[in-house]
């Protein structure tokens, strides 16, 4: 067994939430620069320019990228030979607490659907744990904003609706969301499993590298087709029209019941803040 101290976990979460709220991935910045160059509408181009200037300012470490510094979502893969010397979820939440305080990040979590009292430290994080073979501990950490999450959904399609049904649902959802989720967006799609599995697949799809593709050829084709078709919708940066509506489409899938074709669409704003740490 390999022992892990809870304070190591706290430190990883703390440093990660601060880092991602001030720095965008290079691959995303590059994609935004390309989008700006290819954007034909001048007002939309100026919005993409604002977004690029914004990340230049934020990476100096004084003001975060966005005022919505998100709810922290953590996927943890725990090697079976790992022995955590304390409570994992307590350690993660402590990292969130420290990171949101020291990083001057907004506390965006309320305690109850109707009482809505702020918890004051951005906890609790939303934590998904999985036990895997091996002796490593892997964290996939995201700070997910509320505006784009509000435009997300799960729909149970029938198997007969098939690929075309999935495409129509995705395109309709993105068109109807308009400027609300802060386009240009990244689209995470989960197909299969059941109700809750599809939502988890969609969320995890958003945590993939921006430049990767599905290793299943049918799914990769669907990612490419949707990327092209979403950008033809004309929603544009902030919904004001233009060539740039999405920066990436990521689809994860899982086997499902003979009766079902579950589809979850999780929308991510252009400020895609996530990272991965393995110890």
């Amino acid at each position, binding site marked *: 067994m390999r022992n892990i101290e809870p304070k190591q976990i706290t430190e990883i979460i703390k440093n990660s939430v601060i880092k991602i709220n001030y720095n965008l991935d290079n691959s995303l910045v590059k994609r935004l620069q390309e989008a700006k160059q290819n954007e034909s509408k001048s007002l939309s181009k100026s919005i993409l320019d604002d977004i690029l200037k914004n990340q230049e300012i934020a990476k100096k470490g004084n*003001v975060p990228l*966005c005022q919505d510094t998100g709810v922290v979502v953590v996927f943890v893969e725990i090697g079976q030979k790992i022995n955590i010397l304390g409570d994992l979820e307590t350690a993660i939440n402590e990292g969130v607490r420290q990171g949101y305080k020291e990083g001057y990040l*907004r*506390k965006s979590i309320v305690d109850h659907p109707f009482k809505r009292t702020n918890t004051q430290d951005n906890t609790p994080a939303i934590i998904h744990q999985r036990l895997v073979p091996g002796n490593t501990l892997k964290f996939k950490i995201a700070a997910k904003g509320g505006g784009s999450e509000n435009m997300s959904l799960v729909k149970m399609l029938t198997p007969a609706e098939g690929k075309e049904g999935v495409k129509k649902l995705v395109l309709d959802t993105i068109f109807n969301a*308009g400027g*609300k989720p802060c386009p240009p967006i990244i689209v995470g799609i989960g197909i299969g499993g059941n109700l809750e599995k599809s939502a988890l697949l969609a969320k995890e799809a958003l945590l993939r590298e921006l430049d990767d593709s599905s290793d299943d050829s049918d799914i990769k084709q669907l990612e490419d087709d949707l990327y092209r078709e979403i950008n033809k919708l004309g929603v544009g940066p902030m919904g004001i029209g233009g060539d740039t509506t999405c920066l990436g489409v990521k689809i994860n899938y899982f086997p499902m019941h003979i009766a079902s074709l579950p589809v979850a669409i999780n929308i991510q704003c252009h400020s895609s803040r996530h990272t991965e740490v393995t110890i």
Partner: protein
Amino acid sequence: MINLTTPITLEDIKRLKVGEKVLISGTIYTARDQAHIRLQNEENLKFDLEGAVIFYVGPTPARDNVALGASGPTSSYRMDDLAPNLMKRGLKLMIGKGDRSDKFIQEMINYQSVYLIATGGAGALLSSRIKKSRVIMYEDLGAEAIRELQVEEFPCFVAYDIYGNNIFKDNK
């Protein structure tokens, strides 16, 4: 490009047309979901709504060397049913992001107010145009408290004007 100084007059409103860039200087107020709910029946208002500008934002905490942390707009549609009451009392400009309901647009035209959008997710960039900030109401709401901001050339675009134009439809 149009430069506006607060408070906003009806003459200012008439000049604003969809798609135009607007730079606002002067005093503006922050208010989002919870503040809007409370303002509906508020009898002890701490600022003048006549000619006022409300910015839909919940900023991050400020470090010592800035007036306010990241301050980008939040989605405006959640305030659609709550805004008419404030426009009726003189509110002239709202700054947010995203499209709004047809009912809101009709009310906005009736009250001769205008809806502006700022670049969503550009919280660090927009923060640099905020020179002073102080909480004036609902401190218990934290990020959602009402703040009085002094801004210099705060950049926005006209999204809906009083002539019935709509940036989200006109550009598709």
